[in-house]
């Protein structure tokens, strides 16, 4: 028993948390991230790697259903932390930590679970409308709902199970952008995906790793999200939200130090520590301006000129490529932190309905960078402030 106990104690010290963020709960998520950092806990990007499932806010029926599936996919030992508000984070994580230590509980938990992954009987709830299926978490083909469209056409309706081994529909061919016939895979991005606008679901059709088609939706219906313009929010919170967007974009580029810097600025803004925030933003500004590697990796990502902006109906602030947008976001933060009055009312927000048309034709990594570079504000400055 001694060894088991020691193993458990050691293991809990570097637990990994899969974060489910209900739309509008970014403040809870940020608080959670801070607490995790303090405990030396890491973020899990998929249920496969997660020990703790942390649900920020009260999920709607669709997200709750998804959360349940993610929970089923976690290997265990596993603990679930429901965190309705930022103040609940600490207690919930403590509870999760002590539950993770309870080895006998996890033994029992493991015995009760299905020993084999299964396709959930998704076709039965067809009537819920197909977005139920696509929700599908972080988009792995496996476990469950695999689904998406194809299944109904080929597999289920025709009852031709050979065409859908294990209940999973097969890929169909299609012409790729170079005129070659290539297979099409369907991959839902979001709503539970790291550095992704909370609540957004993008059902992508991939050839290789190029997005050839995308369809957008919002988990639990678009009612929860503002579809454009900037909602009312206190300036510090709005700034922190924009800063959080910068964190996401930088994290996706993999620039570790710059990301840390942006996160520090965000946290300082939320603490209302303006001096620390100003320092961090200055450092961030310097890094973004001088790092040619960062420029190199963001240059030319989703370049939007005036005609593109007009065609998509996007705000002026979105012009240029991802690096321009990053610079302008950091510049804006810098101006605002220096002089709160100077805060421009100009909105850079992109309504979520516009996102799908922006990513078509991009390679998956570029698509992620593109979404992070334009689509952040409306999803972040959330109605958490409005509704709460």
């Amino acid at each position, binding site marked *: 028993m001694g060894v088991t106990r020691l193993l458990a104690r050691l293991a809990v010290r570097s637990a990994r948390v899969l974060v489910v963020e209900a739309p509008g709960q970014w403040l809870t998520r940020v608080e959670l991230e801070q607490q995790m950092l303090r405990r030396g806990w890491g973020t899990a990007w998929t249920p*496969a790697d997660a020990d703790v499932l942390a649900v920020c806010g009260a999920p709607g029926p669709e997200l709750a259903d998804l959360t349940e599936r993610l929970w089923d996919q976690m290997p265990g030992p596993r603990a679930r932390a429901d965190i309705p508000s930022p103040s609940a984070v600490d207690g919930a994580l403590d509870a999760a930590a002590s539950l993770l230590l309870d080895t006998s509980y996890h033994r029992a938990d493991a015995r009760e679970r299905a020993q084999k*992954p299964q396709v959930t009987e998704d076709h039965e709830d067809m009537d819920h409308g197909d977005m139920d299926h696509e929700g599908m978490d972080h988009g792995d083909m496996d476990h469950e709902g695999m689904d998406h469209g194809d299944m109904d056409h080929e597999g289920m309706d025709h009852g031709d199970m050979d065409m859908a081994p294990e209940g999973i529909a097969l890929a169909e061919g299609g012409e790729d952008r170079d005129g070659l016939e290539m297979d099409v895979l369907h991959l839902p991005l979001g709503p539970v995906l790291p550095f992704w606008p909370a609540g957004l679901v993008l059902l992508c059709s991939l050839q290789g790793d190029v997005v050839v088609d995308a369809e957008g939706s919002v988990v639990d219906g678009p009612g929860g999200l503002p579809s454009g313009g900037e909602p009312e929010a206190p300036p510090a919170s709005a700034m922190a939200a924009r800063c959080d967007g910068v964190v996401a974009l930088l994290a996706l580029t993999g620039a570790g130090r710059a990301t840390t810097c942006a996160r520090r600025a965000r946290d300082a803004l939320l603490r209302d520590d303006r001096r620390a925030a100003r320092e961090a933003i200055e450092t961030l500004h310097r890094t973004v301006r001088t790092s040619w590697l960062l420029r190199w990796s963001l240059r030319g990502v989703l370049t939007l000129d005036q005609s593109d902006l007009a065609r998509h109906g996007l705000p002026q602030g979105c012009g240029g490529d991802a690096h321009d947008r990053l610079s302008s976001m950091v510049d804006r933060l810098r101006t605002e932190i220096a002089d709160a009055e100077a805060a421009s009312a100009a909105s850079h927000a992109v309504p979520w309905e516009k996102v799908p048309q922006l990513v078509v034709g991009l390679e998956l990594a570029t698509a992620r960078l593109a979404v992070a570079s334009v689509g952040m504000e409306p999803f972040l400055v959330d109605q958490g402030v409005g509704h709460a």
Partner: protein
Amino acid sequence: MPDGALEIVPVWWAVPAGVILCALAYLAVALDARLSAHEDGHGGGWTVPLSRTARLLRQRRRTTLAADTLLWRIGGAGMFVGAFLVVAVIPLGRWVLADPQVGIVWFNVVDVMVWALVWLTGWGANSTHGLVGGYRFLAHGLAYELPLMFALVAPAIAASSLGVGDVVAAQDGLWFVVWMPVAFVIYLVGVAGFSVWGPFAPALAADIAGGVLAELSSVDRLVFQSGRFFFLTAGAAFSVPLFLGGGAGPVLPGWAWMLAKTVLVLAVLVWLRRRIPLWRPDRFMEIGWMVLLPAAVVQDLVVSLVVVRGG
């Protein structure tokens, strides 16, 4: 023929050699965690490898629907084993487990194996993210492997031998890194490449939810991840006999210099991770073929000219 300077040790020395590799890899993980912790402004770090290992050992294994389990497990296990094969030809000071005439090619073969192993790991889970991760790694492979091969050629030309012992012996007096710096840098790029490390990690990146890692848990994740660190360590260690004069150095014995130099190279590789953003495969492809490959060939040409004139 192998140079007399190296002494072939009995096979059972493979065990201590493996232990040294593990210890160095532990150091790499710990250093990486320590650096991250330092930047994030909280303490801890040195015991992180222990707790991460404990966590993964405690986790249950899981599989995915319609996974190609055989290929999936081969991929992970292969990553774990690969670096140990490299260690066989790395001399620790005077001692080496084997010094074949084609030690450098041996190294190259093992690092090419990583192509198959990473892709298989991505493929086996039957997950789109994993598959995309596999594609990304192979795209990176196509870009870094040829420059790496040409970088490996430079010391071999200078020593007129593909044997690691001969390469060490040929650096008596002047380390190769001094007059083939380009090859050395490209070699380190290659090491990061086949370790899926730092800028070469898009195959495991957050934007595709961990890519190749997306469905790995428990011991499967442990062997894959530690395999990466073993490869990073072995790659750093192999750079020492190749470019940094092997065990050459004043006062201390050869093995101590070998270890010290390895730790230094490893520390640089670890330190660079947080400073360099990911190199997206589509962008890096052109860098590999338009910049690194010509640079490596020119380096080889320079080395050849020096050898021809000098010899």
